[in-house]
């Protein structure tokens, strides 16, 4: 599992060490609970030239594009602030010619990561897409966006997409241990595939918990320790988005301040100046937020407990030896066994 504790670090170090200019970067989160602070740190470090993968491009894609980090975007959904009259950083960058886009359906996008996760070079997708402009209109991927092959059993045409194995995944989860075992629950979306398809993984979490907590609930682990390069504990790390069991979406900040700002280039620039560039890390960001809006605004969205019913992982015993010192299946004590081995000439000096 790597050197003990060597994976626990701050966002600054994690991004500096594991994110490179020109990377294929994937946002692991799906629609909810985005890895806001990791994204902000990438912008602050002025990383550039990404091919960005995002299942559902929400504010995270908007700020990365507005921050000038993204050359190419692979997505299925981009946000637009302020309705028809509003706008989006993606739209503005497309019109400025600084961004290329490749549009997939939710399934097709995810299938590329599922293929990558499993080490396959392609994955079959749902053939209905062949009737659409998603199939006909090729962006920077050209012919490779989709290719058609014949099913060797039915003889029917099968549409495929090529595997994606991004260089690095950034992802925010509820909890992790110091070794990197990352636990996430709620809407699973494509979260595990995005992380596991990637070559490097930076995990931020609301809490680093004892390894024993993880071991008691392995069904919540979506990334095993051995795949993780960095673990960063960042309370409120997804704000203004939500984390199930921790806090709700900050409607005021997200649908209010951010959305109003993002409709125009200047608005978004100003918003990012205040909330991204001038807050060197998450504690500063939260301090700024509280200074400006008070603690009540955060208190209001803190989750109340609603705990899962436990699953029993218990066993009848954890030793081959019963309470009388007898081996459970053979009925002999350790001494009796050793004597028998000696008697039968099985022991070598």
């Amino acid at each position, binding site marked *: 599992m790597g050197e003990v504790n060597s994976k626990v670090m701050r966002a600054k170090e994690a991004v500096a060490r594991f994110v490179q200019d020109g990377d294929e970067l994937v946002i692991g989160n799906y629609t909810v609970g985005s890895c806001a602070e990791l994204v902000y740190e990438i912008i602050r470090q002025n990383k550039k030239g990404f091919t960005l993968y995002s299942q559902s491009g929400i504010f995270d894609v908007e700020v990365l594009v507005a921050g000038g980090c993204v050359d190419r975007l692979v997505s299925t959904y981009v946000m637009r602030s302020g309705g028809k009259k509003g706008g989006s950083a993606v739209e503005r960058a497309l019109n400025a010619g600084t961004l290329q886009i490749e549009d997939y359906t939710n399934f097709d996008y995810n299938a590329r990561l599922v293929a990558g996760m499993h080490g396959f070079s392609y994955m079959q997708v749902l053939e209905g897409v062949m009737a659409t402009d998603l199939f006909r209109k090729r962006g920077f991927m050209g012919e490779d966006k989709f290719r058609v092959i014949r099913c060797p059993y039915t003889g029917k045409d099968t549409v495929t997409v090529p595997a994606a194995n991004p260089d690095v995944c950034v992802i925010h989860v509820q909890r992790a241990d110091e070794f990197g075992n990352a636990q996430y629950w709620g809407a699973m979306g494509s979260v595990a595939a995005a992380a596991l398809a990637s070559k490097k993984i930076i995990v931020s979490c609301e809490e680093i918990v004892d390894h024993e907590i993880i071991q008691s609930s392995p069904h919540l682990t979506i990334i095993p320790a051995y795949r993780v390069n960095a673990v960063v504990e960042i309370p409120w790390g997804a704000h203004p988005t939500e984390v199930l069991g921790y806090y709700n979406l900050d409607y005021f900040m997200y649908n209010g301040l951010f959305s109003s700002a993002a409709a125009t280039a200047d608005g978004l620039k100003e918003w990012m100046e205040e909330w991204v560039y001038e807050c060197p890390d998450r504690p500063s960001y939260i301090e700024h937020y509280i200074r400006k809006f*008070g603690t009540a605004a955060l208190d209001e969205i803190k989750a109340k407990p609603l705990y899962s019913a436990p699953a029993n992982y218990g066993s009848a015993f954890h030793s081959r030896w019963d309470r009388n010192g007898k081996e459970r299946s053979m009925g002999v004590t350790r001494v009796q066994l050793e004597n028998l081995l000696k008697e039968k000439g099985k022991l070598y000096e």
Partner: protein
Amino acid sequence: MSKSYTLDELLAIAVAKEINDYENVVLGVGVPMTAGALAKALFAPHATLMMESGIVDIRPLLSLNNIADAHSCKGFSYATDLFSAFTATYRGFVDVCFLGVGQVDKYGNLNTTVIGDYDKPTLRLPGSGGAADFISYSKRTVLTMRGGTFVDKLDYLTSPGYLEGGDSRDKTGLFPKGSGPSALISTKGIFRFDPVTKEMYLSQIHPGVSLENVRKDIPWDLKVAPDLTETMRPTDEEIDFIRDFAPELSAGRQLAVELRAAYQMEKSRLHCV
């Protein structure tokens, strides 16, 4: 004398009635989710509500912020992933899904990707999301329309309806027989699709809406059912449910935006340094 209602409320209630009990239902946010919650609460208690984010069998208690919003309910029955949610649809386990409309043509084909040129868009819309795959494989698809546009020709075909009409959808061999849009529901009426030509026609008109008012949005010569009926007016129970569950839908887009802006200003002022 029963309660008065808004057109958005009428829309959501009409959409809810497209859900039958015991069905598997894929919802999106906004009108569909509110309609699904209403159906589950009032007349389809055994429907299984699910979303492409993989949360299955939810009973939402307030309107959702997004399609992955498990904050809106107290748990759910099954946490699957997006890949499996779509392949379950592909296998035919979804009875009905709901899609919002950007541009729509007379055969129920949809554009939610772009207005104008793809590379230099006049208006960049969200994209497909799950829409193209759901309308391909759900047994039925209901289109919901609050802000969209009827057009003769889409700028981009995101989600396949009946393609060029007639048997053109079936002839591709790409879709399950009988799938495709079953209705389009707007704030003015309910449109259905001719069984043979697959052309959209007006099947029901909402109370107080004139035929001319419907026709003025539609660039082709809209056909109207010979037995055109009027949509039933909602019950108090239905209206109350929506106002409790999704008051921003009842407010309508413009009023909601105004009220929110004002409330946010007020909140900011209270704390501003």
